[in-house]
């Protein structure tokens, strides 16, 4: 690790935001470099001075009382606040045939509740899986930027990037340079998502980076779906037997433009060869 690399990581290092590998790399560099060590100490001096009690404004003692009164007051002025309805047993009313009908309807209701409950449980389950994957994709994106480990192979030439993946993955990712349409290819990286190694392609657009993850998956093509998480936009789709995730901090509209371009390149170049 050289000085510019170490200095780029100093701030997340003193903030405790680096992963273990980079923490160790920074610490190793700090042991040998006086200049970087002094910068680190300057950062720590500043941090220590700010985070002391002198700059912290504690709430005045009467404020808590004032708030409690205000909340109770607001609560009383809102009598339409939802309350639980009184619970009544619906049996032992009426008699004869009517009572029998009631039991039938209760049983039917129970069956419906069970079916609906099962269905809801099922969709919620898959939604959680998808969310977990989205979080994983987002974490990879953020980590790639934070650790200055954006690319393993840095090149805007797809004839360099594509062969680089040979032997590292059991599939050939679709690699296109989109510089002419405003998204130059920066490079490629191996990543690990959804329990398998995947291809990560990095594109740039102005000051923004885009990570495009792809890996083979079975199933029909799906239209791009936008997720928003922690200020990032994530777009996921499936096309020609591959799952794609594009993630960036640029606007959803711009990212959708990028996805559209990607989709066109996939239809234009079949990726079945290797």
């Amino acid at each position: 690790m050289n000085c510019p690399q170490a200095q780029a990581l100093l701030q997340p290092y003193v903030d405790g935001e680096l992963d273990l590998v980079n923490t160790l790399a920074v610490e190793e560099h700090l042991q040998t470099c006086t200049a970087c060590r002094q910068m680190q100490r300057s950062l720590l001096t500043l941090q220590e001075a700010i985070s002391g009690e002198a700059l912290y404004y504690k709430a005045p003692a009467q404020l808590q009382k004032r708030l409690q009164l205000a909340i109770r007051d607001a609560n009383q002025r809102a009598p339409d606040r939802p309350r639980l309805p009184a619970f009544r047993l619906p049996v032992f009313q009426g008699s004869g045939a009517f009572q029998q009908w009631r039991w039938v309807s209760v049983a039917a209701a129970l069956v419906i509740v069970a079916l609906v409950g099962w269905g809801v449980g099922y969709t919620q389950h898959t939604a959680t899986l998808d969310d977990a994957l989205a979080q994983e994709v987002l974490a990879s994106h953020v980590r790639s930027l934070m650790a200055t480990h954006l690319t393993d192979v840095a090149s805007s030439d797809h004839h360099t990037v594509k062969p680089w993946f040979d032997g590292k993955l059991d599939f050939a990712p679709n690699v296109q340079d989109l510089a002419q349409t405003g998204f130059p290819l920066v490079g490629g990286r191996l990543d690990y998502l959804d329990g398998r190694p995947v291809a990560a392609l990095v594109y740039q657009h102005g000051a923004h980076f885009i990570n495009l993850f792809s890996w083979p998956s079975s199933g029909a093509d799906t239209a791009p779906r936008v997720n928003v998480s922690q200020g990032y936009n994530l777009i996921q789709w499936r096309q020609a037997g591959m799952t794609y995730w594009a993630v960036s901090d640029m606007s959803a509209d711009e990212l959708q433009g990028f996805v559209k371009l990607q989709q066109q390149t996939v239809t234009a170049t079949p990726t079945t060869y290797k």
Partner: protein
Amino acid sequence: MQARNSTAYFEQVVLPHLDAAYNLARWLTRNDQDAEDVVQEAYLRAFKFFTNFRGGDSRTWLLTIVRNTCYTWLRQNRRDELTMFDEELHNSPVDCAVLNPELLFEHSIDLQLLKDALAELPIEFREVLVLRELEGLAYKEIARIADIPIGTVMSRLNRARQALQTDLLQQMSEGKPL
């Protein structure tokens, strides 16, 4: 009965973060009385939306509301303080050239000067520093509260620290004790 219970539950979940709420509001409004008013308004809003709170980190949840209430209040009362910093204009891609070569660590810092320097920072720098250094929050939580990407949290923190250092070192070179 239920309403009273929910009030008690709300107080139990949210009142412990009163110092954090007040500290943030005080740094954003820079005035004791205004901070108290904003915090009260924020707590009333939080109470109203408490049914939307699904557990999890109640401090981040509350601070998001406090921060938004501050911005609404400033927009209504001191609009000139919200001249937004033009992120695009000043943004370089992975902007991490961290520090001035000057050596701040050789000096002991005058806390009053530091307090004044922090209060003078543009609001979007002030808020990330306050959340990071005074509340000890992670980048992820700051990103959620300030509604910005993590990359922006990092670059704002970076610029905020640079500005503070430059300011302090300048004061020193002008002969004031540091």
